[in-house]
């Protein structure tokens, strides 16, 4: 089936530094999402993105977070600066229609030291 790729699978970074998580969505999809899962907790919605704009974001989407998809390339989540509580697995997803069927990547584990 359709695949969403996330690169890298694990990233370790020092607190205060910037990190960019990359997502290669399904090729003809138009809607993009990030979810966050802290160890032992539920996966939670962060943000959705369509037509170059953030449509909706949750309270977890702090001011230090930003998303973009320049020129149809990777869909990225940038955190600047990182904090210890940003340590989590971040899942990217995409969908092509208004049917709520999301395709997820395998996640990037972010460790902030």
């Amino acid at each position, binding site marked *: *089936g359709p*695949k*969403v790729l*996330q690169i890298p*699978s694990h990233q370790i970074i020092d607190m205060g530094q910037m990190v960019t998580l990359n997502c290669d969505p399904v090729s003809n999809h138009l*809607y993009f*999402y990030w*979810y966050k899962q802290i160890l032992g*907790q*539920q*996966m*939670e*919605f962060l943000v*959705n993105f369509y037509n170059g704009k953030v*449509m*909706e974001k*949750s309270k977890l989407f702090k001011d230090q977070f930003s998303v973009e998809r320049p020129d149809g390339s990777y869909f990225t989540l940038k955190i600047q600066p990182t904090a210890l509580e940003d340590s989590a697995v971040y*899942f990217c*997803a995409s*969908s092509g*229609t*208004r*049917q*709520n*069927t*999301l*395709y*997820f*990547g*395998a*996640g990037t584990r972010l460790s902030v030291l």
Partner: protein
Amino acid sequence: AQSVTQPDARVTVSEGASLQLRCKYSYSGTPYLFWYVQYPRQGLQLLLKYYSGDPVVQGVNGFEAEFIKSNSSFHLRKASVHWSDSAVYFCAVSANTGANTGKLTFGHGTILRVHP
């Protein structure tokens, strides 16, 4: 606000046995409901979804789920499990607004182990 409860963190069954993974949701109307599965080192894959109509929905690999509104449940079932069904299963709900927000609320997941 919606929520999802998967009361069983871990379920272990023998190969060939029947399976039920429980999911209860909280939502004021009729939601969209989903079951996803995550195999090791892979992304979540959609097993099945319910939007409307027949409350019993069929999914891939012999899975099915039944939406019972009176019980606010959407339990996942399979008649006979295979060892390859070992994975983490997530129940999710989203608002039934007719617009694609992709804002799913997930349960904690149930780790299924099928032993030979």
